[in-house]
């Protein structure tokens, strides 16, 4: 009877497994295949029920990273980088700050908490619509100072085309190599500390190699035969503000849960040792919040890589200045019917998200399996 029940259990799980196998992995495989074809290059074939597809290898990817026309995609990657950076800084910083304030045994804590977290329940489309109105060039936030008698601001939040911190696209491999060199240097230092000399040596050599390659201008790799400037599009500032408004309550909730998990005895012990209230946080509480910060960074980081609706609602889908890969994929595939190019963008996006999520899933499930 027990074996029979086990069989029933597996059979009951099977439909979900089959659905996910097809809808997640089958479809990803299909997208990957499409990205290696020329689907959409010929407009007459694009919307055919059974389009004739020719295999073109990695051509679509080559165009994305080094093609003349796809400068927009490269700027999209840069946009995503800066958006993610400031979005994470904003949500983590504000969330931690609010959690610490709420942890001071304040009155009406539940009311404050409810207020800080409510935007999380809203659709990105609603947030975007509301903040687009807040950030109108001659209204909303810009005229707030007038309420207290100050001159109005003249910030063109979402419409500015200003770009700062410009760099040449050809220097990207050098930056990546330098980043990898730093990571290997850290790994070498860790290995040395734990007495694994060989490993430390290998990592040290890799560090030196990568650093040398980056310092000499990455010989052997030329992305473009000409300099191509990219930088931070200032129009993203407004979008970051709206995104932080929506999701900082989430980090507040995570951090508050973490703070409440710190045993009072630990704090008390530090106070007995003469630590100030600031010192208690600096030396006792904050170091314990590391794991929470890491999971918040991963969850919010992957949301940020996929950000789509918020930008659509705030700046429009077709606004090149505020474009990101997630939007460009949609436009290429479903507006221009250039499905192969859209698929290639989607796969790049998937790889970026997987880079963040796969190690996270591995590490958080590993501990559990042992248990």
């Amino acid at each position, binding site marked *: 009877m027990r074996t029979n029940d086990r069989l029933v259990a597996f059979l009951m799980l099977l439909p979900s497994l089959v659905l996910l196998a097809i809808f997640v992995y089958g479809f990803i495989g299909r997208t990957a295949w499409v990205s290696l074809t020329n689907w959409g290059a010929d407009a007459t074939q694009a919307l055919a029920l059974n389009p004739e597809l020719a295999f073109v290898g990695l051509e679509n990817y080559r165009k994305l990273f080094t093609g003349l026309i796809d400068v927009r995609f490269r700027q999209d990657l840069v946009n995503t980088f800066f958006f993610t950076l400031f979005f994470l800084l904003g949500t983590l910083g504000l969330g931690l700050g609010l959690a610490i304030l709420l942890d001071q045994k304040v009155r009406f804590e539940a009311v404050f908490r409810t207020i800080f977290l409510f935007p999380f329940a809203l*659709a990105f489309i609603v947030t975007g619509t509301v903040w687009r109105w807040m950030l109108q060039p001659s209204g909303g936030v810009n005229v707030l100072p007038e309420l207290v008698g100050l001159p109005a601001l003249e910030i063109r939040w979402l419409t500015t085309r200003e770009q700062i911190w410009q760099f040449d696209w050809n220097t990207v491999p050098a930056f990546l190599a330098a980043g990898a060199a730093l990571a290997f240097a850290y790994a070498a230092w860790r290995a040395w500390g734990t007495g694994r000399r060989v490993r430390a040596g290998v990592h040290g050599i890799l560090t030196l190699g990568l650093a040398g390659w980056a310092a000499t201008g990455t010989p052997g790799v030329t992305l473009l035969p000409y300099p191509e400037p990219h930088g931070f599009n200032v129009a993203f500032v407004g979008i970051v503000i709206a995104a932080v408004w929506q999701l900082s309550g989430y980090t507040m909730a995570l951090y508050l849960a973490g703070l409440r998990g710190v045993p009072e005895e630990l704090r008390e012990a530090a106070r007995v040792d003469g630590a100030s209230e600031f010192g208690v946080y600096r030396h006792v509480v904050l170091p314990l919040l590391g794991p929470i910060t890491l999971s918040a960074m991963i969850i919010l980081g992957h949301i940020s890589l996929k950000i789509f*609706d918020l930008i659509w609602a705030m700046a429009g889908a077709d606004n090149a200045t505020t474009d990101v890969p997630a939007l460009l994929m949609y436009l290429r595939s479903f507006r221009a019917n250039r499905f192969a190019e859209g698929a290639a963008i989607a796969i790049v996006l998937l790889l970026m998200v997987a880079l963040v999520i796969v190690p996270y899933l591995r590490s958080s499930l590993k501990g559990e399996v042992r248990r």
Partner: protein
Amino acid sequence: MSAQAQDVGLDLGRRRSGGRRGRFRWMIYAGLLLATAFYLLPVYLVVVTALKEPAAITLADTWRLPETWNWGSFATAWEAFAPTLRNSLVLAVSATAGSALLGSMNGYILSKWRFPGANVVFPLMLFGMFIPYQAILIPLFQFLRDVGLYGDLAGLILTHVVYGLPITTLIFRNFYAEIPDEMLDSAKIDGAGFFGIYARILFPLSVSGFVVVVIWQFTQIWNEFLFAVTLTRQETQPITVALANLAGGEAVNWNLPMAGSILAALPTLLIYIVLGRYFIRGLLAGSVKG
């Protein structure tokens, strides 16, 4: 895992006894009030804009209260959005029900009937909730078109049920892991089989698990945009798509998008305010997996 997430959810509501006094306590409240202003100013602006006569909405007077209260925008918005609100409701309710029921069954199996290979299958299932849906959008579009569900609400429901499975399975699996195996063993001795155990023991204990999952899924599906904009036609549009289309046109008066935003936000906001504790549990369950 789930014990952690759930305890943490409840912990948020607990206040430590005792209090400290300090000269700088007013600064704490000043900081909290400043933050409150940041979170509530957009709400104020939305409400006053929605209540103004269209002609009275000028950029310079943005922050002023309306001179005459005009509830007409809500009537107009309701008229314009009623069909899309109905679509969203049908979509969110049926997709939530489907993914919650399947997730409950999956969670039961993965926590109480572990089979060889489950340690590999489960992470592979979970990965499905993190992927950027752009990576499956083109084949999904083709598939729904081939089976005749493109542009149909049923196609969108199916989509949300399938891609909701990872999170609902995760939450239920963690929820059921807390129920001691001994309870199941005694039921087995009484002769209960696979379905008997589920129906007599697990399911009756699942109420708060279902509340967490239903709230989470309803909110996610109601708010979703990418699938909605790609896979529907005019008649099957959910509210998010209709709102984006309305607000995207520059010519409209702002009172309508604002009234529409309020209509679109109300269902999930009400859930949040009434069932906040369960909402936070779902939110933490979706992230704290360590």
